[in-house]
């Protein structure tokens, strides 16, 4: 009897241990953001948060490691075998979440799906001529022009299962203009990635669980991930403080200090690859919003330099940004290919020199100018603009600031109208992680036919820089290419084409028991998350 009782106790102890053990192992993870993922469709919207969330479920041929360097994912090897031909070896034995095997056909299908309207990712494929299957484990991309960055772009192109998509009528991307039935891929997902979609309640929450059959060894220790949308800043912070949420992706700047000092939460911050800058309308012969008539003061490099020198970037950093910014002098930040540390030196802040420059340019009394600024796009965007207004007032420039929500702001300043005289914009070359994208989109002369300079809102134009950018676009030799990029940076700086301000700090906040890897592009792959 006594033996039996002992035996029973032993069994109970073992059971308890097992339960306790599994409890200790069970690491659910709950995180929140102010906005939702638009859709589960991998080609629905080309936006960082959207793509980073989907990367937990779907995978691309290549992916980025902790330092944003390319590494193998669904492809194991890749090479630009000829100037206009890339070859990828595919990983074998990979299965989609529904059990169908991953094949070369899936890759061809997914690339074509992404490259065809109404996909939002067509911009990645301007150079693509054809993608074709060579054999079951090999894929080739033939390009129309030399494209040294094709591999970089493919990181954002996720692979769907062709049979799954065809069976469910999702062979095409979601088309928001067709008020027909919803695309199956909007709420359902079937990838090869580390997590499987369990529940999708748009605008409320999305639940994913680890994929037990994932080809790679999991670095995370999560058992289930719940992503909730909490739009209100105060509520999101409260949910983190009360422990209902383990991690918040967008941290309101005013709460950063509090969250770093609270007992159970911590802050993780680092500079983001996005560069926030100010630009001038240098295209029009007369500014739309200025009291200078008959000419455009911003066409004069001395005026642009005067503005640059009048801005006290340290004051913006310490007062407006509370230290959460890294000033830059280039249009790209560390982490982007083509960033040159030696060139990242700002001209000295010097209001007296600025006044003199203005006087030399013929504006002894200064002048009046309009300025456009978003108030919900970048960290403290409106406050930065207000600081700039005050700083420019010191050299006699009267700035009329118009700060609006991004929805109105971008409609005003972006093309084809480009209705602004002086504006703020932020940019990160998120498709290629290469400086060429910045030259092509922001600094090359506007040329819609050649798809150059579409976001060159100010219309800056320098034939030398145009030529360099065109040349380096097709340069395969990395050393030569980097030298050209450096030359182009120098032209940009000599021209004072824009005023780069800073990289805003990426700020994440989490409970103290969470370990995450903060990538400089603000992507947040859950495969790096650990709950202790």
């Amino acid at each position: 009897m006594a033996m039996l009782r002992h035996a029973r106790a032993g069994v109970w102890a073992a059971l308890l241990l097992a339960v306790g053990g599994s409890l200790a192992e069970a690491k659910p993870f709950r995180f929140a953001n102010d906005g939702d993922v638009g859709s589960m469709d991998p080609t629905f919207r080309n936006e960082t948060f959207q793509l980073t969330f989907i990367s937990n479920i779907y995978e691309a041929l290549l992916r980025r490691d902790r330092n944003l360097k390319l590494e193998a994912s669904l492809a194991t090897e890749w090479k630009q075998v000829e100037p206009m031909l890339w070859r990828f070896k595919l990983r074998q034995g990979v299965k989609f979440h529904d059990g169908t095997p991953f094949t070369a056909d899936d890759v061809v299908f997914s690339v074509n799906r992404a490259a065809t309207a109404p996909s939002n990712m067509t911009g990645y494929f301007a150079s693509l001529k054809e993608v074709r299957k060579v054999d079951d484990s090999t894929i080739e991309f033939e390009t129309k022009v030399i494209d040294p960055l094709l591999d970089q772009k493919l990181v954002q192109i996720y692979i769907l299962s062709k049979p799954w998509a065809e069976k469910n009528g999702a062979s095409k991307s979601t088309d928001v203009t067709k008020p027909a039935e919803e695309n199956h891929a909007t709420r359902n997902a079937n990838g090869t990635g580390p997590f499987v979609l369990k529940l999708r309640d748009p605008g409320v929450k999305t639940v994913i669980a680890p994929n037990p059959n994932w080809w790679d060894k999991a670095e995370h220790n999560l058992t289930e991930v719940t992503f909730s949308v909490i739009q209100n800043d105060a509520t999101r912070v409260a949910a983190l403080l009360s422990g209902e949420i383990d991690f918040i992706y967008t941290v309101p700047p005013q709460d950063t200090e509090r969250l770093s000092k609270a007992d159970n939460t911590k802050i993780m911050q680092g500079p983001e690859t996005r560069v926030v800058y100010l630009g001038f309308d240098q295209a029009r012969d007369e500014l739309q919003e200025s009291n200078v008539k008959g000419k455009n003061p911003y066409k004069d490099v001395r005026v642009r330099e005067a503005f640059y020198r009048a801005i006290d970037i340290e004051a913006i950093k310490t007062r407006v940004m509370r230290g959460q910014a890294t000033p830059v002098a280039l249009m790209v930040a560390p982490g982007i290919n083509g960033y040159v540390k030696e060139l990242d030196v700002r001209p000295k802040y010097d209001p007296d020199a600025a006044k003199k420059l203005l006087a030399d340019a013929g504006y002894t009394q200064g002048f009046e100018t309009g300025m456009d600024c978003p108030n919900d796009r970048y960290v403290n965007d409106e406050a930065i603009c207000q600081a700039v207004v005050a700083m420019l007032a010191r050299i006699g420039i009267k700035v009329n600031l118009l700060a609006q929500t991004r929805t109105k702001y971008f409609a005003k300043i972006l093309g084809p109208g480009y209705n602004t005289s002086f504006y703020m914009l932020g940019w990160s070359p998120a498709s290629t992680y290469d400086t060429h994208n910045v030259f092509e989109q922001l600094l090359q002369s506007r040329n819609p036919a050649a798809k150059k300079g579409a976001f060159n809102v100010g219309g800056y134009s320098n034939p030398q820089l145009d030529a360099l950018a065109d040349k380096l676009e097709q340069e395969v030799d990395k050393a030569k290419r980097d030298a050209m990029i450096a030359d182009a940076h120098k032209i940009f700086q000599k021209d004072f084409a824009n005023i780069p301000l800073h990289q805003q700090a990426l700020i994440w906040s989490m409970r103290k028991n969470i370990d995450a890897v903060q990538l400089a592009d603000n992507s947040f792959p859950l495969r790096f998350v650990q709950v202790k």
Partner: protein
Amino acid sequence: MIAFVLRRLLQAVAVMLVVSLISFALFNFVGDPINNMVGQETTLDERAELRRQLGLEDPIPLRFARFIGNALQGNLGVSYRMAEPVGRLILSRLPATLELSLAAAVFALLVGVPMGVYCGLYPRAPLARLFQAVSLVGVSLPTFLIGILLILIFAVHLNILPSFGRGEAVALGWWTTGLLTAAGLKALILPAITLGLFQMTLIMRLVRSEMLEVLRTDYIKFARARGLSNRAVHFSHALRNTLVPVITITGLQLGAIIAFAVITETVFQWPGMGLLFIQSVQFADVPVMASYLILIALLFVIINLVVDLLYYAVDPRLRLDRPGKAA
């Protein structure tokens, strides 16, 4: 009677059309949704093409006519933000809003009426003065602040109630309810109090003044003279007579509660229609905004119609269709 209802219905249709036209015209000022819908790499041509396909280039009257035409066929369009049919989107958020509004109304009544009665019976008691002070807070503090304060106290400091969301919702067909789970009920408490607080104060003050009024009337004196107990006098005679205006106000306020749920839903991330609306405004998601406003207008029109019909039933004077016959 039928003529009266028909006339009312016709008026309702006119109101709906005007409301939708005004709201539709307003959307022209929220901005351009296109730049929210695409990534930064999207070329200007592609943006223009998308804008054209969505019909955003067309003049407002044409877009309005198209929207109304589709809406009459039961097609409210597709959300720009979520790429889902708007009708289904709103329908899926409707239960959350209705449950919250109902809970808030019940809270306002169950707490407001007894407090009002007490204040009416003992206007000089310290507790009555306290209630009065509290009610002042309810009237003067903005909803979002009350919500944040409640979150701070009950979620962050005491850690007993959730700060956001609906807890666990159970699906009963297309209807989802949070009333059947403990987590759902717990999640309902703070938002319902936040949303109902203003109405509670309103009801409390109304009941109090009505009680004071009624208690001075002759029939109360007669009731007392008959030797009825305090209890019988206060509740069956006084309170019952104060309830008529209270019921009217509560009914009318229900529409206001549903419409004003926008703020409470935003603070508590309550997945209702109001939250959907706010998110859509930020995105300039016109189909969702337009549908929501029309739905709210419809709700007000229906409530007013019902109230009118009730008056019609209650007040014999209204039953005379033509004023000429009144004499």
